């Protein structure tokens, strides 16, 4: 690991240790926060008891559905828009301001429309993720060097072959970035929606524990969500590095 890497680990460890000391010393009261060490112990207890396993499974399932839909729809729409520049020019302003729109504001609307089930949550996760996927797909196809497309024509490759053997491999790193963003966004959307209002799932359990002043459940769950999502994001980051290492100059 690099010097910066070691320092980073030390900084994180020191921060956690500081919180631990503040909690143990009573400067942060138990009503506000429980010490990180207790969070870990309590989390192990929760996970082994299996009490919250249905909530965890449900959240992961909803994220999975929202994610799969956003990747599929986002890629297809991105590819279509790339092929239809006139349409693309028209919808481009929407993409430019899309992430400025507070998507959560639509959640009450979806609850009234579809009831308090999985559907509104899936839609929020999907809506947050899909545009990142569309934009990344467009970006990937835009960045295919013209010389490579000309080369495909010199080899007299048809449209399908050009798409599969030149355009797709060329755009792959950007599309992967889209997938990575879609994963982060669908977690953000789903857990956020569950937290605001729902009947189950990890976000709901956190809100429920908060309302019952149950810090021994709430903090471990918060830790679980943050650690889980961070591990997934880091894993994707390293996978991306390995996958496309040979494409990088150096």
């Amino acid at each position: 690991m690099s010097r910066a890497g070691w320092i980073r680990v030390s900084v994180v460890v020191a921060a956690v240790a500081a919180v631990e000391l503040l909690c143990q010393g009573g400067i942060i009261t138990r009503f506000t926060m429980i010490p990180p060490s207790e969070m870990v112990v309590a989390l192990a207890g929760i996970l082994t008891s299996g009490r919250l396993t249905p909530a965890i499974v449900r959240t992961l399932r909803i994220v999975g559905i929202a994610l799969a839909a956003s990747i599929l729809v986002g890629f297809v729409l991105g590819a279509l828009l790339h092929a239809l520049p006139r349409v693309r020019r028209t919808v481009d302003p929407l993409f430019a301001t899309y992430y400025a729109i507070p998507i959560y504001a639509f959640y009450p609307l979806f609850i009234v429309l579809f009831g308090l089930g999985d559907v509104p949550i899936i839609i929020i996760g999907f809506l947050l993720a899909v545009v990142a996927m569309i934009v990344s797909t467009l970006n990937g196809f835009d960045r295919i060097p013209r010389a490579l497309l000309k080369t495909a024509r010199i080899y007299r490759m048809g449209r399908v072959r050009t798409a599969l053997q030149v355009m797709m491999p060329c755009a792959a790193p950007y599309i992967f970035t889209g997938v990575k963003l879609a994963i982060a966004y669908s977690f953000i959307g789903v857990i956020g929606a569950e937290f605001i209002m729902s009947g189950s799932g990890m976000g709901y359990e956190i809100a429920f524990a908060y309302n019952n002043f149950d810090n021994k459940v709430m903090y471990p769950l918060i830790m679980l969500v943050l650690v889980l999502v961070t591990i997934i994001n880091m894993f994707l980051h390293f996978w991306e590095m390995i996958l496309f290492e040979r494409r990088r100059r150096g």
Partner: protein
Amino acid sequence: MAKGEAHVTLQGVTRVYPGVAGQQPVHALGPLDLELVKGEFFSVVGPSGCGKSTLLDVLAGLASVTDGAIRFEGVPIHGRVPDGIGVVFQEDASFPWLTVEDNIAFGLRQNSVEAGEVRRRVDHALSLMGLKDFIRAYPAQLSGGMRQRVCIARTLVLEPRLILLDEPFGSLDQQTRLLMGDELLRLWRETESTVLLITHALDEAAMLADRIGVMSARPGRFLEIVETGWPQDRDSRIVARPEFGRITGRLWSHLRVESLKALGQDRPPL
């Protein structure tokens, strides 16, 4: 088709880009007349923006002519890439997701050439271009010159009868350009193909070609076709000959005027 016969003929070739959204149409090229002899090395020089790359695009069948006709081996080319033509572009066109070996074999595999034959031709091209030690490397791990060699090798394995090169050494330093020029001459002799090289470098054109077409500012037309009279087995050492200086000087006397025109200064200060 025997050596010395007309291989490519251009008659009144013109290319006009239609004006988009109320803009004036751009007359990029022509009319051009030219006959390339089978097995010759022809260079095209001209000021920036004179339509050199447009000429390559219409020759390769990547763009169609607005007027006139191009024939390759007697068959008209009109916006369709014909069989038997290889192109090396100015930009790096190696596929970054394929190894050097797979890049070179790409065209052969597209044409479903049998595996043993692919192996044989790729090996030959690898040794010809000095890429033997980089078979498993990816383009990103190579220098610009090596990547351009990969592109040349990828073109050669298809054994094209006409090779079009668009500023293939444009991004390389001067010494590397001269050495790559030597290799290009060697390949040209070995493959006996017809070569058309587009370049902005006068010395490159003067050193490599049998004949040099000097193009005017846009719309590009041939002002003169200069015969170099070099022997078949020449190499970069001919730059030391007095004729080399004379040819380069002659090219520049044309191009100085045309380049000034292209810069919008029709009346050159004396």
